């Protein structure tokens, strides 16, 4: 039974990590037009232990993407400098949406495994019912 409990624990850590990833993606998308906003990226880290230890995944420290911010030309904007440009954000909606789709896929895969583990353990208990 501990193998099934371990599998459930790891799967839920994967679900949590993907949900956190989605949260940061939604922050990026919402703030795509905010001047001076740098997009957030979050690395995934695995809990390295002995080879038999359960390798749960966790999100690491949130990092800000350091690529240069967009310079948008709009002389009427309150933040515009002498040349009429102001700094926007470095969020590319295409990248964020693609990442969101990937997160969705990973989440679904983890859900599938969760369901599978439960089915397998129920099947095992079913043997005793007869």
């Amino acid at each position: 039974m501990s193998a099934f409990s371990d599998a459930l624990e790891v799967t839920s850590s994967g679900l949590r990590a993907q949900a956190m990833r989605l949260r940061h993606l939604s922050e990026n998308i919402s703030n795509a037009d905010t001047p001076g906003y740098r997009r957030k990226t979050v690395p995934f880290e695995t809990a390295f232990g002995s080879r038999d230890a359960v390798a749960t995944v966790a999100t690491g420290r949130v990092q800000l993407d350091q690529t240069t911010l967009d310079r948008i030309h709009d002389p009427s904007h309150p933040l515009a400098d002498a040349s009429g440009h102001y700094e926007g954000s470095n969020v590319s909606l295409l990248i964020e949406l693609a990442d969101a789709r990937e997160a969705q896929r990973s989440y679904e895969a983890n859900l599938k495994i969760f369901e599978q583990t439960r089915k397998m353990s129920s099947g095992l208990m079913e043997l005793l019912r007869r």
Partner: protein
Amino acid sequence: MDIKGLSAIQKYAAARPATAVEDSPAQAMRAAATDFATTLAQTEQTAQTAMISDADPHALVTALAQTELAVETAVSVRNKMVEAYQEILRMPG
């Protein structure tokens, strides 16, 4: 006693140590029951937190699934033990 019967007895004697538990059966049962109680207590705690505040839904679902597993195991064991007890009661004489 014929030769086949003899070898069956030898095999049975050889297999008996494999089924022995490390502690006495009562202690093994107690350990299993404690483990089961701990799982249920933890799940109850998580469920209460989830109902009151915005707790982590993944932790809640995992705790509930673990409990479901533990309860199913305990119920199966209980059923088998009751069945064995009833079989013995049914012995004539």
